[in-house]
Every structure is written in C-alpha cells, then in structure tokens.
C-alpha cells in the first residue's frame, strides 16, 4: 500500500518520476489531485498479463538504468508539456520481479482540461517504450527471454 506513503507536498508541484522495487498501486495520492488548478488527471496503469503470445507467464524481471531513466523522463516531460500544455507528469516503474496481475508501471498527466491530459499520458507511455532505459525479461513455461520491441 505504498501509495498511502507516497505523499507529495504542495511544493512538489512538478513532475514525479521514480523507480521502485515495491508494489505499485493503481492510484494517485490525494496530494497530487487536490491542488485545485488541474481539473483533469489521466492515469495509465500497466499490469502483467497471465498469458502473452500463447504462453503462460510465470514472472517478468525488470531492470532499469535508474539515473538515466530519470534524466530521459525529464527530457521527455519537457517536450510533452510544451506540446500539450499539461502541468505535471508522473511515472513510477517497477524493477525486479513482477508477477502476473501486478502493476509494472503507473503513468499520469494532469492539466487544466481532460483532452490535453489524455494526449500527454499516452505520449508519455509511447516515449517510455521508445527510449527510456528499462528492460524486461519474461519467464514463461518455455524459458526466459529478453523482450525486444516489435518493429
């Protein structure tokens, strides 16, 4: 239940990017949504599926180059904010072993209105998958494989 602990002070009015080995819950803390400025918050929550490409998934191991993840996300965030006008972006990604049904990633975008928040959150996920240095190795009944992006 780490979201209850994940409190953001009013001063923290900008982005929040984090890598964690702990379970992620699919939630924004009240301290993130209650600022009264942003009326639209769009969240993406990615969970591990039990089956992938016809195989039973046992677990996924995530690995991240943490300081570069944060650096890359800050760059991506500047572009997304400039393009969409949202005010704040959030991304929390698991590392280590993640089981089917668990949350691997939580992404969020908050802005004055909803259409920009939808656009920004989807862009953040697309950019995460394009360039942020995080890797997953999937263990199925057939063995272990590093997942590479499908062209």
């Amino acid at each position, binding site marked *: 239940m780490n979201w209850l602990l994940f409190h953001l002070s009013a001063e923290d009015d900008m982005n929040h990017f984090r890598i964690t080995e702990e379970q992620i819950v699919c939630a924004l803390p009240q301290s993130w949504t209650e600022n009264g400025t942003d009326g639209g918050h769009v969240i993406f929550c990615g969970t591990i599926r039990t089956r992938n490409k016809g195989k039973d998934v046992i677990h996924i191991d995530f690995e991240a180059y943490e300081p570069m993840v944060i650096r890359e996300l800050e760059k991506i965030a500047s572009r997304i904010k400039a393009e969409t006008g949202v005010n704040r972006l959030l991304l929390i990604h698991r590392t280590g072993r993640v089981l089917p049904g668990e949350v691997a990633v939580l992404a969020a975008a908050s802005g004055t209105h909803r259409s920009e928040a939808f656009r920004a959150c989807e862009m953040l996920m697309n950019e995460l998958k394009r360039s*942020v240095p*995080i890797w997953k190795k999937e263990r199925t009944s057939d063995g272990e494989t590093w997942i590479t992006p499908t062209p």
Partner: protein
Amino acid sequence: MIFRVRMFGMARDIAGMAWVELEISQMPVTVKFLKQSLLQKFPGLSSLLTYEIAVNLEYAQDSQVLNPQDELAVIPPVSGG
C-alpha cells in the same frame, strides 16, 4: 587508457558481467570505436540487432569522443512498460 562500461539487459547476459573494462590505446576514442572494441571482446553482441551507447546518461552519436571519466553504458533496445 581504461574505459569502464556498464552493461544492461541482454548485453549484460552476453558479456556475463554488469561492468566491462576496456583498455584502449588509440586516441581519440569515439563511440564508434568503443562499439568495435566491445564487439571484438564479446562477439555475441552481434546478436543484438542494434544498441546504443549512453555517455553521461545521454544517448550518444557514433562520432562523439570519449574520455575515461565518462559514465558509459551499453543500452540494448528498451522494453519498459
């Protein structure tokens, strides 16, 4: 000069280690040359269709010149999310 390179994901599995040390005498050392040296040491890296080199937490061009203080990393195709 000694260059230390972090290996991630499939590259780490191929190298069998998370850190690689390369002694390179030729100067200047470019990203392209670093990639060639890595491939010489770990021919298995050719099974990665493509990979990037990060220099001080940023993606680098092949032409970028390195110095031994740089934080270097092999970045195979990413698959977060």
